[in-house]
């Protein structure tokens, strides 16, 4: 590669890839469930992106990067997922650590009960439903970006996501927590 081309690649990398570091790491955490693996996956993705950046048209950098990440992830050994979900008790810990002067404690406690119920509902769902919820609600991806990251059509993302939330909603309707609140 010539020096000029190299300089151009570096500039494009700075513009398109570097700002997406945090999102890439979040998605990588969802994919690998493990900090060290997530870090490796993002580095792998960055390298692949760097090598392909002269062919990137500059449109939708996040979607482009997530597609690269998916391909990189497929090439890796997928670990077994020992702890699929976080412990709802952790949320209680967060409440305990919140400064009462700056936070509305009562609201947080109510939220915590609600969150724990949502968590329980989520745990009853199969992995493909949890995956779309993580991509959209947790990682903040658009439907298209989630589709690129998972490798399914947008329509599949939509139907899985909407069904997953409807199941959670149904669970809430029959649980104690929903009674008396909306």
């Amino acid at each position, binding site marked *: 590669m010539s020096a000029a081309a*190299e300089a151009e*690649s*570096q*500039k494009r*990398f*700075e513009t398109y*890839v*570097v700002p997406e*570091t*945090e999102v*890439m*790491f*979040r998605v990588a*955490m969802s994919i690998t469930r493990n*900090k060290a693996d*997530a*870090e490796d996956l*993002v*580095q792998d993705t*960055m*390298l692949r992106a*760097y*090598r392909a950046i002269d062919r990137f048209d500059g449109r939708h950098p996040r979607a482009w990067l997530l597609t690269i990440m998916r391909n990189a992830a497929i090439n890796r050994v997928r670990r077994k997922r020992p702890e699929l979900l*976080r412990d709802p008790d952790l*949320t209680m810990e967060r409440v305990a650590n919140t400064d009462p002067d700056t936070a509305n404690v009562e609201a947080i406690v109510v*939220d915590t009960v*609600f*969150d724990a119920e*949502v*968590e329980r509902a*989520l745990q009853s769902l199969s992995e493909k439903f949890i995956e779309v*919820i993580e991509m*959209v*609600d*947790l990682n*903040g991806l*658009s*439907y298209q970006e989630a589709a690129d990251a998972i490798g399914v059509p947008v329509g599949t993302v*939509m139907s899985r*996501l*909407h069904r997953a*939330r409807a199941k*959670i*909603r149904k669970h*809430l309707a029959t649980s104690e927590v*929903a009674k008396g609140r*909306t």
Partner: protein
Amino acid sequence: MSFFKKFKKKQTGKNLAENAGNSAISCRQVGQDLQSFLDGESTEITAEALAAHLEACKDCGLEAEVYQKIKDALARRAPELADDSLARLHSFGKQLAESGDPE
């Protein structure tokens, strides 16, 4: 309650109830489009019709509120991102941007 503020923002000035009355959108349709709307994935026209309906129809409004709360609860599950990992990745990216491919 500030929940409807974001819906109102999407309105274009017409009286909300009147708008809902004129729009062809039904409660059933709201049920179908509600989640895409809350995810910000609706077209502008659908979003306006939905927002007007949610403001005027109590049942659908409450349903929207429940789904928004579920979304919020799911978003709160986000684990604290490991700062050390992020810092390493940032410097890795920076190094690529400044010195190019190590290989």
